[in-house]
């Protein structure tokens, strides 16, 4: 890890990013009455149910891709990191994330941001569980094998 892990600036910038994520969630709720949960928004585009409201879902997902490019206009660097693992773990992780967020009805944004902000017991339990299994997985991969 870089030396600046605990220096102030990245932490403040991260908090500022968190405020923007919160504002985005508030925007979705105030204007459209929707939870800004990425897995739910994207999942609604998938079979078997043909959704009549696909356009706003595509628009939100497109915005997620445009955001980093706007940052790149200011900083001259696209703020996207590289994967740290190979193809097989990436594909397995993608399947797990897809299956898990569909079964559990939410991810870091839907349960983690919107759900906790609604003081949802379901979201609190979901966040505690996925944080624990994520940290457990990293521990096993990095320190136990």
């Amino acid at each position: 890890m870089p030396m600046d892990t605990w220096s102030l600036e990245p932490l403040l910038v991260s908090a500022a990013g968190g405020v923007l994520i919160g504002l985005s969630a508030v925007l979705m709720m105030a204007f459209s009455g929707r939870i800004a949960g990425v897995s739910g928004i994207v999942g609604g585009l998938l079979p078997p149910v043909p959704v009549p409201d696909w356009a706003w879902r595509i628009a939100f997902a497109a915005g997620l891709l445009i955001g980093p490019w706007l940052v790149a206009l200011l900083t001259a660097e696209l703020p996207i990191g590289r994967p740290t693992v190979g193809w097989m773990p990436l594909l397995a992780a993608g399947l797990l994330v897809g299956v898990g967020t569909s079964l559990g009805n939410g991810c870091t944004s839907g349960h983690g941001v919107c759900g906790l902000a609604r003081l949802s017991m379901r979201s609190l339990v979901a966040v505690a569980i996925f944080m624990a299994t994520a940290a457990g997985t990293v521990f096993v991969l990095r320190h136990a094998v």
Partner: protein
Amino acid sequence: MRSVIAALAAGIVFGVGLSISGMTDPAIVLAFLDIAGEWNPRLAFVMGAAVPTTFLGYRWAFRRSAPILGGTFSLPPTHGLDRALIGGAALFGMGWGLAGYCPGPAIASLSAGRAEVIGFVAAMLVGMTAVRVLFRLRPQARSRTGQA
């Protein structure tokens, strides 16, 4: 049309927030999850700012009886645990810890056009579709269990 513009704006703000806060770098996310390693606290600062902002903003939004663009507030239930929620959250966490991508940062990271990230998102969509088809998720069923 106005709801599409609102969603685009919200998506852009979300994408800027994720990418300036380091969440589109899986190394930073995995370092947060690595509590026995050189711990990186950035994700805690993101959540610690996002949740109170949303909490306060929702209080403002809910002062109206309906969303600004019409319709109703679509709110998933907050209480009642079931095996799908618990098992799903457990599986999601395993996938998150394996690669350091959750759905938002993964989709935002498509902006760099990297083949591996496209592969991750494709696998994620396959997983989502499999569950939706197997469990025959319908709008009614989703509003019952809550789509967050």
